[in-house]
């Protein structure tokens, strides 16, 4: 049973058309990767899910409900957590306030204490600095905070837009280790990356987006071994 189903979605910014007839599905418990080069429209695709960009045609169903008609702020209460490109932490707020905002909706507010404890157990660095402004954290720590805050939302689907962007390779490994733990705990995820190997190594299935068109889709292992993809993205 698929949780999210995008069907022939077209979208853009004003006169600029960015996405053409995009179809994509995510099943429960599945990790899906969306890869593609700069400017392919990956972030725009996520924005149609988060409600920031409204599709000009097509439909997006979330657990049977039409997402394109749902007010933007209702994603959280319906179990969609979105870590945007650039992490989206609130730099002027304390780390604690960032985390608590993860339980802003009535769906998670009653479990605030428990969720906070779990998040801090997973990210002990944050515990030491709860009252510091989030902006004082390093890039890698900010990404951890963004993931921790998303976990506070107890999401049914976690969407990550280039979680490795701007991070040192060691830190990227840390981030992916955490995503792997979450995967094994049964989280559904949609991960966007330019870094194809990373994204396809953690995911069950992948989609390849090229200049707004869905070029290819299949099990991640097959995509990794695909000669065309290796040539286009890995320079092999």
């Amino acid at each position, binding site marked *: 049973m698929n949780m999210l189903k995008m069907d022939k979605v077209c979208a853009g910014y004003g006169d600029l058309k960015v996405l053409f007839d995009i179809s994509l599905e995510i099943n429960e418990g599945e990790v899906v990767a969306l890869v593609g080069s700069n400017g392919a429209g990956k972030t725009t695709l996520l924005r149609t899910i*988060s*409600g*920031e960009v409204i599709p000009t045609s097509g439909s997006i169903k979330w657990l049977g409900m039409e997402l394109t008609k749902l*007010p*933007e*702020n*209702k*994603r*959280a*209460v319906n179990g969609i*957590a*979105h870590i*945007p490109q650039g992490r*989206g*932490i*609130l*730099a*002027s*707020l304390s780390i604690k*306030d960032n985390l*608590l*905002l*993860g339980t*802003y*909706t009535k769906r998670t*507010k009653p479990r605030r204490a428990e969720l906070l404890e779990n998040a801090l157990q997973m990210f002990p660095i944050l515990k030491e600095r709860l009252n510091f402004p989030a902006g004082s954290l390093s890039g890698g720590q900010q990404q951890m905070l963004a993931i921790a*805050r998303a976990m506070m*939302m107890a999401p049914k689907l976690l969407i990550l837009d280039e979680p490795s962007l701007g991070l040192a390779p060691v830190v990227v490994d840390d981030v992916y280790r955490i995503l792997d733990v979450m995967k094994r705990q049964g989280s559904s995820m949609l991960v966007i990356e330019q870094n194809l190997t990373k994204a396809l190594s953690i995911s069950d299935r992948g989609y390849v987006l090229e200049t707004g068109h869905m070029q290819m889709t299949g099990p991640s292992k097959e995509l990794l071994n695909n000669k065309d993809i290796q040539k286009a993205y890995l320079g092999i």
Partner: protein
Amino acid sequence: MIQVIINGLLIGAVYSLIAVGLTMIHGVMKIVNFAQGELLMVGMYVTYVLYGAFVAEGSAPYFLIVPVCIIMFLFGALVFKVSVSHVVGKSETSYIILTIGMSYLLRYGFQMIFGSNYQSIPVSESLKFGSITIGGIVFTTTRLIAFFAALIFTIFVNYLLSSTDIGRAMRATSENKTVATSLGVNAKIVYIVAFGLGTVFAGVSGLLVTPLYMIYPSVGAVFSTIAMSAMVLGGLGNIKGAMIGGMIIGVVEALSSTYLTTNVSQIFINLVLILILIFKPYGLFGKGVRIA
């Protein structure tokens, strides 16, 4: 001298409260409300009307604070809904025209209803001129009450912003509306609450100064200038700055009108403002423009 400074600090707390309301609106929706003084004027007239209707002549107006808060919040929410909401996040400058227009509308609207005569509420002589003396310094009762009431409201704002969900949502929306929305925050509600509270603070300030000032439709102009100066002086968008800015302006005003004449206090307020901005271009607590 100490006496004069104390007088300035006492009334300065009220200026702080007006500036805090202004700062709150600016912080959350990036709008400078040029009608803040007129909202105070509305608060004075609401106090005046309620006093006339429900309060025995001579008694203190302070317990009207609850109805004034409620009425002003609803009034602020209405003003936001019908006018301000249309310019939030739309353009960099259209709010200037809108809120200046609103200030004229309120001023002349109230003039049509109440006339341009000076009114006052008939509080008893003992309240009006009452005072207590501690260590040789005289604390006027009305100013002392205004000071503590303004202080309590300011502490309340600080608590609200720092430790409640709606406060966190307000700060989140202020920093990044898209992220706040993705966390489930309804920005429209945040805006209404912020504007409503900004209006409440102006209205309560109006109530607190009714025993001290005459009530007339253009009384807001003075307070607009003072609140704007306090906000800029403290550093735009900074609640603590607005508080201290208000106090400083109260003291400067008291000093200049005591040692020179009342008419020059505006000049001195502006002079202090210019001096501070020369040395601290973003105000006392301003952080300047954040890059990236």
